[in-house]
């Protein structure tokens, strides 16, 4: 909310300057987001009078003016404004001054061959408002030659963020009250005198929706002249960012900005019959003041007459019943609307307004009569006319809230010792009534006060939070105990293992374009946002690979030869009861060159599926998985190359990871050049250590005798999984065989068609005695026999 210092000082007697007031506002919870001093940007502009205006000899839309500046000879100024004319007063900028709106320095120049010595300015050029239809017209009594900043009484403008719990401070008056409580000056309460009016109100006013509109007060003023509002009012409105429109509209805006109290004025001539607060009918429409038509429903409260809806209650008036310059009789409406109803209606209609902001936060329910009196007084004073008596339909909820307060709570919750007298002073200054027994009656405008904690907040914010003394939390004895969960420990190990293996950790968006998400969803139902920020950020990711793949593509597009990326994050699925099922996952994408071409290594090497397998195994090992028990199986998913991908499982069901080369269609969908390797570790599938693991390792018992190795070469069918052969061989004699390692795989010349030669080094570990030749022979025979079950024959 914006307001000028001059306006604030109307309600507040203080010697404090703008900076001191801003500091006080910050201290008591009204954050000052900016102070602007228009005097600075208006310096150099002055009040000037147009003496003559003649058409420009060489341009239809321009005029050549002679302008009296207050000193020296009149100046010649070229001007394009249609309202420039002899005799008018305006604002002149002389060469050397800077135009606030565009930062341009004015110069003496020739415009279409005619010398121009300055510029007559519009409202917008001086950043005083939006208007740009012509140059500023000042009243006839404006002193020619006076600095415009001085004439305009330019006053610093505060921009204050009012928190949603304080609608009472969405008016300058409320802010002044808070400042006074904080010791900044004394309050100038506005004396409000009821205006009785003459004669009954000629319009029937009713509320047929006491839930939505508990109170609707109004009166008619006849015989008004709706010209411009006075300069003092316009200045305040402009400073507050509100464009002056007409006296009556300005007066209602003034009431809102000064007292946080929205009200509405109807042109009586445009109303027929009783004016009623009621529920809208489904499908009923209204054209609002913003010239948009809204379709209403029965949950919405409106103000209507016999002809139809004239006002979306508490949010925006109607276009057709608003006041105009020609209006002579007005009906004033000041009502209390249910905050929740306003909020719901505003949200449904997607319609924001200053009135809605105040009504949905809660206006002062005890300010209807006063607000109407202020409104009436201003209109009678500025526009003339005769007021009728007031009609009061319904009654606002003003039952006072009383809170039993214990002033010791201030130190117990707020951590500040504030003596009771000071607490009483603060609450009283904020208009709370504090009884001797600390029963605190809240002013009805303070909807935010719900209980004792709120009163503590009032006391400490006014007393000053600077007084809060740091108090150590009680600390458990001894060294801090570990707090991380098993999953957190696994994630930390994985993160640093992956980085140590040369992978860079990325953080990519949790959301994906729907087609990318679907490509990786494997038919699982996706979470798709209702209101995404863009189509590219619409579906929650079912895999970490797409985000990393897109990052790899961006890297390649930037000319990177390779990307080695990993991410630890969640995949999002649907759980039971409509909740989400978020699964912790580690993703790896390796794209481009595994190794650049080199003087020693020759051509560049690309990543292959075994690189993916190596990462998967190394990371699973880092996560504490017994990798020797893992089985390599298929079914990595349709996103992978069917012949160059696999899964790693503990048992045949529990898939811990998938890895391999991505499918060419996946690469095409992401517009990435291949080959690209990917790995996904499913961290939720990693079995927890039994009992959380133990510190003591199993006993160290190195074998007494040295192991021996024997090499075997087999011819196997080319489609046999070598891993199966190795597993079979290891199982041939579980006592003697401790390892079997493939050291050569060959197909081609010398090997029959459809066959592959596989060479395996078997490690045999003797127990207490060295193997005899006969024993070695027996084990060898077992190995050959076992291999034969897989169709392997020993090569001669």
């Amino acid at each position, binding site marked *: 909310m914006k307001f000028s210092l001059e306006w604030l000082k109307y309600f507040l007697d203080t010697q404090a300057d703008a900076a001191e007031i801003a500091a006080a506002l910050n*201290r008591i*919870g009204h954050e000052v987001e900016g102070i602007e001093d228009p005097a600075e940007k208006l310096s150099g502009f002055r009040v000037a009078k147009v003496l003559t205006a003649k058409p420009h000899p060489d341009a239809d839309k321009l005029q050549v003016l002679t302008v009296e500046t207050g000193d020296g000879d009149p100046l010649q100024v070229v001007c394009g404004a249609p309202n420039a004319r002899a005799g008018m007063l305006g604002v002149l900028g002389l060469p050397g001054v800077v135009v606030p709106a565009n930062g341009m320095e004015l110069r003496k120049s020739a415009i279409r061959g005619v010398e121009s010595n300055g510029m007559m300015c519009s409202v917008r050029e001086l950043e005083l408002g939006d208007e740009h239809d012509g140059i500023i017209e000042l009243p006839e009594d404006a002193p020619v030659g006076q600095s415009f900043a001085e004439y305009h009484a330019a006053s610093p403008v505060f921009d204050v963020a009012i*928190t*949603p*719990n304080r609608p009472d401070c969405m008016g300058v008056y409320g802010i002044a009250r808070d400042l006074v409580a904080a010791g900044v000056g004394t309050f100038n309460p506005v004396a409000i005198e009821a205006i009785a009016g003459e004669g009954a109100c000629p319009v029937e006013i009713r509320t047929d929706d006491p839930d939505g509109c508990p109170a609707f007060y109004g009166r008619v003023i006849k015989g008004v002249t709706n010209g411009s509002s006075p300069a003092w009012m316009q200045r305040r409105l402009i400073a507050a960012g509100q464009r002056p429109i007409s006296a009556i509209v300005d007066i209602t805006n003034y009431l809102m900005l000064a007292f946080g109290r929205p009200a509405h004025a109807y042109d009586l001539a445009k109303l027929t019959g009783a004016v009623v607060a009621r529920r809208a009918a489904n499908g009923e429409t209204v054209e609002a003041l913003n010239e948009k038509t809204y379709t209403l429903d029965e949950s919405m409260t409106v103000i209507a007459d016999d002809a139809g809806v004239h006002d979306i209650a508490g949010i925006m008036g109607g276009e057709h019943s608003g006041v105009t310059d020609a209006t002579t009789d007005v009906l004033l409406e000041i009502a209390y609307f249910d*905050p*929740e109803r306003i*909020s*719901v209606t505003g949200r449904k209609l997607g319609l924001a307004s200053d009135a809605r*902001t105040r009504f949905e*936060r809660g206006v002062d329910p005890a300010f209807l009569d006063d607000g109407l009196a202020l409104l009436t007084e201003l209109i009678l004073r500025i526009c003339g006319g005769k007021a009728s008596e007031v009609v009061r339909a319904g009654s606002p909820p003003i039952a006072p809230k009383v809170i039993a307060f214990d002033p010791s709570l201030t130190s117990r*919750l*707020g*951590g*500040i010792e504030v003596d009771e007298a000071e607490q009483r002073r603060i609450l009283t200054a904020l208009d709370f009534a504090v009884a001797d027994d600390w029963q605190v009656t809240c002013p009805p405008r303070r909807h*935010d006060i719900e209980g004792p*904690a709120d009163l*503590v907040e009032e006391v*400490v*914010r006014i007393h000053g*939070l600077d007084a*809060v*003394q*740091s*108090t*150590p939390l009680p*600390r458990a004895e001894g060294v*801090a105990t570990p*707090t*991380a969960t098993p999953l*957190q420990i696994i994630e*930390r190990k994985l993160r*640093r293992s992956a980085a140590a293996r040369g992978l*860079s*950790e*990325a*953080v990519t968006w*949790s959301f994906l374009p729907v087609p990318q998400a679907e490509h990786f969803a494997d038919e699982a139902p996706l*979470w798709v946002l*209702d*209101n*995404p*920020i863009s189509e590219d950020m619409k579906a929650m990711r079912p895999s970490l690979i797409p*985000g990393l793949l*897109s*990052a*790899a593509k*961006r*890297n390649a597009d*930037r000319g990177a030869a390779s*990307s*080695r*990326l*990993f991410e*630890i994050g969640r995949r*999002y699925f649907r759980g039971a009861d*409509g909740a*989400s099922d*978020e699964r912790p996952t580690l993703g790896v994408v390796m794209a481009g060159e595994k190794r650049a071409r*080199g003087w020693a290594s020759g051509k560049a090497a690309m990543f292959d599926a075994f690189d993916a397998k190596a990462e998967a195994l190394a990371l699973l090992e880092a996560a504490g998985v017994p990798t020797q028990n893992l089985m390599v199986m298929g079914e990595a998913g349709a996103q992978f190359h069917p012949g160059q991908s696999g899964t790693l499982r503990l048992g045949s069901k529990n898939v811990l990871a998938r890895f391999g080369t991505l499918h060419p269609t996946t690469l095409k969908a992401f517009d990435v050049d291949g080959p690209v390797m990917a790995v996904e570790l499913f961290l939720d599938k990693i079995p927890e250590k039994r009992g959380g693991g133990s510190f003591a390792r199993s006993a160290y018992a190195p074998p007494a005798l040295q192991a021996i190795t024997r090499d075997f070469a087999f011819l196997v069918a080319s489609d046999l999984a070598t891993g199966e052969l190795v597993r079979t061989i290891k199982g041939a004699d579980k006592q003697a065989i401790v390892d079997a390692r493939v050291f050569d795989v060959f197909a081609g010349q010398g090997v029959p068609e459809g066959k592959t030669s596989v060479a395996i080094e078997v490690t045999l570990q003797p127990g207490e005695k060295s193997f005899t030749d006969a024993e070695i022979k027996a084990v060898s025979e077992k190995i050959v026999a076992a291999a034969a079950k897989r169709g392997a024959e020993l090569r001669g």
Partner: protein
Amino acid sequence: MSDIDTLETDARTRIAAAETLADLESLRVEFLGKQGSVSALLKTLGGMSAEERQSEGPKIHALRAGVSDALSGRKAALEARALEAQLASETLDLTLPAPEAPRGSVHPVSQVMDELAEIFADLGFAVATGPEIEDDWHNFTALNMSETHPARAMHDTFYFPDVDAEGRRMLLRTHTSPVQIRSMVAQGAPIRIIAPGRVYRSDSDATHTPMFHQVEGLVIDKGIHLGHLKWTLETFLKAFFERDDIVLRLRPSYFPFTEPSVEVDVGWQDVNGRRVLGGDGDAPGHGWMELLGSGMVNARVLEFAGLDPAEWQGFAFGIGVDRLAMLKYGMDDLRAFFDGDQRWLAHYGFSPFDQPTLSAGVGART
């Protein structure tokens, strides 16, 4: 000159002249072999009288030892020369590059989260987590933001069309605060947790991204007040920035889930055009920076979480993790955090061995 002297001189001359190990070997055979000339002299000792032997014996033995030494000396010299020649032929140009190994890195967000976990573990806080796809009860209602609460509208929430089994609207959590509720419901009180994680707001411009990271802190116990909150934040920030001159300014504010609510500013100073935290924000050349929101947990929130506000009270706070990373490590563009640019990750990422520890300091210095 005796024959022995002649033989020795001849042998030494020829041994010294031998250029190969093979030549040397044939000289050894010639002199010391079974048929060798020195061996032949040794054999003559047997046929000598005792007197002769006494005078000739030592000479002949000395001759043998001398020749033998000359042979082994020359052999060592020839071998050394051969090794030198071999090594000379094996010279590598070590200005050529060694094989390269890729260098990985840890993302600044993870690094900072690990730092937070380390610092808060020392203060007795555990790390809690909760779902990112939340329901509106946990994200709003239980945090004292009813359906029509204006603050709800200010959250720029991403919604899903779905409702859960209890009819609650599903959404992306807008803050980590729902973890407060879930943790209190699950664990009761007393409780000390931090809850770092991803949060989402439908907001995107130079300084906002639709996804970012927050860390929530929650302490519920008996007798906890604003002074404890201030101490906790001061202690944390001093440890995090490894500076003793961190100064906080508490300002009243409003959050529906805390009462009283406090906005916390931290003092900074201008160091070569960069804002560096530390010092009193009111001092010349200093300023205040809004850092986080906090307050005493609203009694209603405690009730929603099943705790009795007459018995328990405490504080909560929330800070942007990305922001903390930027302030500490100097990144200036939030959007780059989520791009996966290999160059940025190499520049701002951390070595895997920068594991934060209290003994080495939780921060990683360059």
